[in-house]
């Protein structure tokens, strides 16, 4: 290997030695890098790329059951994807690292820019550059008036549109000074830019607050029943780290009735309405409706209609004729015609008898033909329950939590007829059917509806919205308010006329810049037509 020094440029003793920065130097270097536009750009692109996996893989906070299925179907890949955080991308360390670095970079950028902007707001418009010739947008003209009158006219025309200052320059070797006008407009552009970025920080903080303070739960309510807004009443409940039980808005809600409408041809749903009774402390029941898109709001809490279905009311009697079960059982709809599946678990049979389990299908509008029984319409025009009965041990006593919508038949036997065929019972409302093998009977008492409700409370939601709208306003200002500078130099031509030299500069692409300059030059020319106005001294601060 050739010695490295062979390639050393002349004058460098050791090409590998770098100037020593020290910890403070490195920190300063790192901060300057992080707050540079280039790194912000890189972080933005990284953020976009890092957000994508969340749309390809199921996410735990939204669809835990799909994650579980994915892990079961792809055990090897799933394990590694899980370790990488692919099933909870938006809470993963790498995603958090990117957006936190981005926000640090953002803050590091807007703090000095805010200072600079405040100074610019206080300061006068920038001085007239020595040479106006180098500006692409510039104009020259001659006015039939003295420089002071031209300057007066220009300042008058700029009033309200520009922040303008008149001034004068001592022309070398000339008695009459050269008068100047410097003007600037569009400070709102930078203000909007800063408001936009600060509001993004506000959105982030408000979202984080919502995560900590927010809470909510799901509850399934059968017609004629209700629930109280308390943790124990929810089927599932989630809350942020700062949640206390006292944060729950006190109320109870009862489901009086539920109405649905469907398109008769396409079977698509057209309307869902839940009629509820709301009871708040110290007040009588109030009738309210909840629709999709129209949640019921109680203080900062909102109740959303997220699902609906049928809960057939059943009475099951055991072999002794004693009522072993009575009440509505929610059946979960499985398709657009509300073919619904449900499970009735009957552990409380008379002593010495086997526990009963019933697996049922509800067909709201049943049609029985050669294809077997099926539902053809989602409304309960001719409801039919198709039941299969199991006897044995429901497995409820071993302490393992069970899904109420699934029947564990591992320790149960299906009821069969004399020929050993599994018996399927078909019952309509008001009808009873004897269970095979003398196990008892089942009665279909009625068909109440149920609704699935989401109850949510995010006290920071309003703040998120306010910051988001502020960001939108700031963005509009920062992109569409033109920031322009105008400079005029007015030289006395000696014969009562004034030579006008003007230039304009804009931040970014600005098609209206030329028109603005022309308008100002026209105002300068008009000074001669109006004639001098000696009675009113122009707003001038001489330099």
């Amino acid at each position, binding site marked *: 290997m050739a010695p490295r020094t062979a390639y050393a440029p002349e004058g460098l003793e050791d090409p590998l030695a770098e100037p020593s920065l020290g910890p403070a130097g490195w920190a300063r270097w790192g901060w300057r890098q992080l707050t540079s536009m280039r790194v912000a750009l890189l972080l933005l692109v990284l953020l*976009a790329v890092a957000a994508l996996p969340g*749309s390809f893989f199921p996410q735990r*906070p939204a669809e835990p059951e799909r994650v579980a299925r994915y892990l079961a179907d792809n055990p090897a890949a799933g394990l590694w994807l899980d370790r990488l955080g692919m099933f909870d991308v938006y809470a993963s360390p790498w995603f958090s690292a990117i957006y936190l670095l981005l926000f640090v970079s953002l803050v590091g950028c807007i703090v000095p820019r805010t200072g600079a902007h405040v100074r610019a707001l206080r300061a006068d418009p920038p001085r007239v550059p020595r040479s106006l010739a180098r500006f692409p947008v510039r104009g020259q003209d001659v006015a039939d008036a003295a420089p002071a009158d031209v300057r007066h006219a220009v300042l008058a025309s700029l009033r309200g549109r520009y922040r303008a200052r008149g001034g004068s320059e001592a022309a070398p070797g000339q008695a009459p000074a050269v008068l100047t006008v410097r003007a600037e407009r569009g400070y709102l552009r930078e203000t909007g830019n800063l408001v936009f970025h600060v509001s993004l920080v506000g959105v982030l903080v408000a979202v984080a607050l919502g995560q900590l303070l927010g809470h909510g739960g799901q509850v399934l309510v059968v017609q004629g029943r209700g629930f109280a807004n308390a943790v124990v009443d929810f089927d599932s409940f989630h809350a942020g780290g700062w949640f206390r039980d006292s944060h729950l808005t006190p109320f109870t809600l009862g489901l009086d009735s539920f109405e649905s409408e469907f398109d008769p041809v396409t079977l698509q749903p057209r309307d869902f309405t839940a009629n509820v009774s709301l009871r708040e402390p110290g007040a009588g029941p109030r009738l309210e409706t909840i629709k*999709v*898109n129209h949640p019921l709001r109680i203080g900062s809490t909102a109740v959303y209609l997220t699902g609906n279905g049928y809960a057939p009311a059943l009475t099951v009697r055991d072999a002794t004729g004693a009522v072993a079960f009575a009440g509505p059982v929610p059946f979960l709809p499985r398709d657009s015609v509300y073919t619904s599946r449900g499970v009735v678990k009957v552990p409380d049979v008379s002593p010495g008898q086997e526990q009963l389990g019933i697996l049922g299908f509800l067909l709201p509008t049943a049609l029985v033909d050669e294809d077997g029984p099926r539902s053809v319409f989602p409304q309960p025009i001719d409801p039919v329950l198709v039941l299969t009965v199991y006897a044995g041990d429901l497995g409820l006593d071993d302490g393992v939590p069970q899904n109420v919508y699934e029947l564990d038949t591992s320790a149960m036997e299906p009821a069969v007829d004399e020929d050993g065929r599994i018996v399927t019972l078909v019952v309509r409302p008001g009808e009873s059917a004897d269970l095979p093998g003398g196990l008892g009977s089942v009665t279909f008492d009625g068909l109440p509806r149920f609704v699935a409700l989401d109850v949510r409370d*995010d006290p920071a939601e309003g703040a998120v919205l306010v910051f988001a709208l502020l960001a939108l306003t700031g963005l509009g200002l920062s992109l569409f308010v033109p920031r322009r500078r105008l400079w005029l130099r007015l030289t006395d031509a000696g014969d009562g006329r004034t030579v006008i030299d003007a230039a304009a500069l804009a931040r970014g692409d600005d098609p209206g810049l030329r028109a603005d300059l022309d308008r100002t030059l026209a105002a300068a020319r008009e000074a001669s037509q109006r004639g001098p106005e000696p009675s009113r001294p122009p707003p001038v601060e001489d330099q």
Partner: protein
Amino acid sequence: VSTAQLGDVSTTMIYAAMASYAVAFVAFAVDLSSLRDGGPERRRRRAAAIAMAVTWLGAAFHAAGVALRGFAAGRAPWANMYEFTVVFSLVAVLVFLGFSRRRDVRYLGALVTGPALLALGLAVAVLYVAADGVQPALQSYWLVIHVSVATVATGVLSVGAGFSALQLARLSADERASAPPVPAVVAALATPEAPELAPVGREPAGRGSPGGLVRVLRTLPPGEELERLAYRLNAIGFVLWTFTLIAGAIWAEHAWGRYWGWDAKEVWTFVIWVVYAAYLHARSTRGWSGRRAAYLALFGYACVLLNFFVVNLAFTSKHTYAGL
């Protein structure tokens, strides 16, 4: 007149718009191919004049089709993928026509009418559903606000992407034209037409013989001007997209009980927002303005198309309103 008949008339109008755009596209292409013989300032561009007139006609049919569709369905006509496609392509055509009233952007015509024809073809052939009411989740005034602004944003970004594409094409044509001369054989291979048919170009002799396409592209406005036009549209598109995102979050809070849930559609909308934000930042970053910024804009627009066509149909999302 029954609503079903109205719906049929609407579809007929869309077919008429497609026919017009097809004629306009051919005329724009003829105009472009004749540009290689000389600059646009040298002669009257009859083909381009015909193309513009037919595009206006097509836009009228197109707008009538959208309006009739709204009457047929009895609601805002942008509630499924068919309607969204029809409306955003109309917006793109209208943005182009609006621009052309201020300045000569006829060079962009083929890149607007061609994709508009393609989008409408896709809409009637694949995405079509009969005019009808909507499910409860869509019964909201936010359908009017959120989705209409989304269609306008998509239409505006479409034209912006057209300018960005032309900008890149023009820049690479400039590079090709200023490249050192290549051996004759290679030049003949690189030039699609037979050398003896190639008319004498405006390029000075001895700089190689750039192909017809390069010569056509060299008649476009300079890259910086195309960049400015693209930026103006993309900036407007970005603001509209921001509004779409916020309005969508408000609607999601009303309908689904949360303003943001990282649904596939929300993820892609966010990604598009970030990419266009990066584009706006890139323009003021040394070394990133110009070509790289244009690539970012095109990447953003590719995400817009993916977000609409692929996410709606292939992803598990709450935004599956195609009705297919």
